[in-house]
């Protein structure tokens, strides 16, 4: 590798630090009137095939990421997040009762349902808006998506266990761990029905997220 001469270094640094593409004339004016054309050409060749390239667009020059690496500039990062208990309940209600309005969900849960909860479920791709109910106020109504069935491995909603089956499985037994925790005040979730209906279950939140990259 041949070491760049000082003019080439100066052009390289100037273009690198510049906030805008520069013409050869601007570069030249910046560098005491030096003839920069050769340096530009030499730099262009140097950066050829690298991750960064020196490109000329019209009369201006600038550095840019190599086109084949453009995908690196935008990345998706998946973050695994567990659905909060409030969101899980809302999802279950939608699944069992669909289509339902938010007011109906709230009536069944006995607590107010934050808008955010439904947003999370829609973001997850499990719930969607399917229309409006033709009653006063024309509330939006929600239903599950095909993706919901896929995620939960269900052929249809009919495969969701009925109340009797839930009871038989002990899932309707009043005493279970969560209830005990709730009773002991260890859970900030919205377990009390009605009485706390003013409270918003904003804790759509996310058990065990890690925000930090």
């Amino acid at each position: 590798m041949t070491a760049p001469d000082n003019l080439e270094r100066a052009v390289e640094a100037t273009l690198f630090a510049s906030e805008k593409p520069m013409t050869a004339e601007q570069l030249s004016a910046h560098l005491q009137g030096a003839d920069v054309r050769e340096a530009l050409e030499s730099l262009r060749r140097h950066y050829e095939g690298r991750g960064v390239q020196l490109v000329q667009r019209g009369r201006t020059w600038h550095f840019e990421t190599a086109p084949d690496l453009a995908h690196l500039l935008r990345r998706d990062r998946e973050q695994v997040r567990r659905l909060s208990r409030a969101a899980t309940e809302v999802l279950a209600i939608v699944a069992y009762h669909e289509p339902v309005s938010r007011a109906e969900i709230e009536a069944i849960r006995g607590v107010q349902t934050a808008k955010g909860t439904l947003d999370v479920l829609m973001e997850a791709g499990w719930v969607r808006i399917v229309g409006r109910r033709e009653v006063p106020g024309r509330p939006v109504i929600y239903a599950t998506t095909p993706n919901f069935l896929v995620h939960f491995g269900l052929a249809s909603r009919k495969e969701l266990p009925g109340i009797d089956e839930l009871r038989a499985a002990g899932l309707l037994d009043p005493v279970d761990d969560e209830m005990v925790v709730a009773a002991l005040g260890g859970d900030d979730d919205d377990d009390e029905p009605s009485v706390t209906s003013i409270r918003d279950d904003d804790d759509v939140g996310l058990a065990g997220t890690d925000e930090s990259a």
Partner: protein
Amino acid sequence: MTMDAVPDPEAVSIFEDWDAPLAASGDDTALYLEVDGWEGPLDLLLDLARRQKVDLRQISILQLVDQYIVYIERAEALRLELAADYLVMAAWLTYLKSALLLPREEQDDPSPEELALRLQLRLQRLGAMREAAARLMGRDRLGRDVFARGAPEGLRIDRRNAWQCEWFDLVRAYGQVQLRSQPAVHMVRERMVMTLESALARVSAMLGVALDWIELRDFLPTDRDSVDWSDPRLRRSALASSFVATLELARIGKAQLAQEVTFGPLRVKAVKA
């Protein structure tokens, strides 16, 4: 070191211009009153110490004390309002000087030499930091001497949440909701009873054939009937209904009731028409 008793008019003007930048005059024979703005007495001491033009480790503390006192006196002569800490330092330095000069009878702890040494160390420490600050500021600094890329494309990281929820969580959540929201309906269990009507009929019929007092219990049905009268709940029901029936018969004048002791046997007899 010489000191003019009369304030130098030049110095006065410098003093008045309090925020003036460091004046560049360098009269080192007299104490030059530099008014750059001392950052406390230690700062002033450091500057005075530097005027001795020796390594801070070798400065003469006695000389430094004298210089400081002179400075303070001069400032007072100029009727400058000095902050209390400058005066406190002056007093302490005067004490230190006398302690250093006078013969000592008993050993103070710490000794004046020790105190002088500590002062020296403090000045060194402050001097070192001041120098370090200057060297730090003189480095090639990003955005002043060296530059990051002027127009970085930026890395965009789109976060997508992969929401997790298991089938079990879902159905259990629904169970919880149901459990919570089920109205508390109290179902009365269906059970065998003897109705008041049948008790009335039975008691009336039995009173009709009986001539003497009969205990109420004897009116109760027996296993002869198709029903299982051994069920204690059914028997209680029959007793209660039969009691109400006899009360009704007594009310309409068809029967009379007697009970000798409280909770004793209740006897019934027909009233002869």
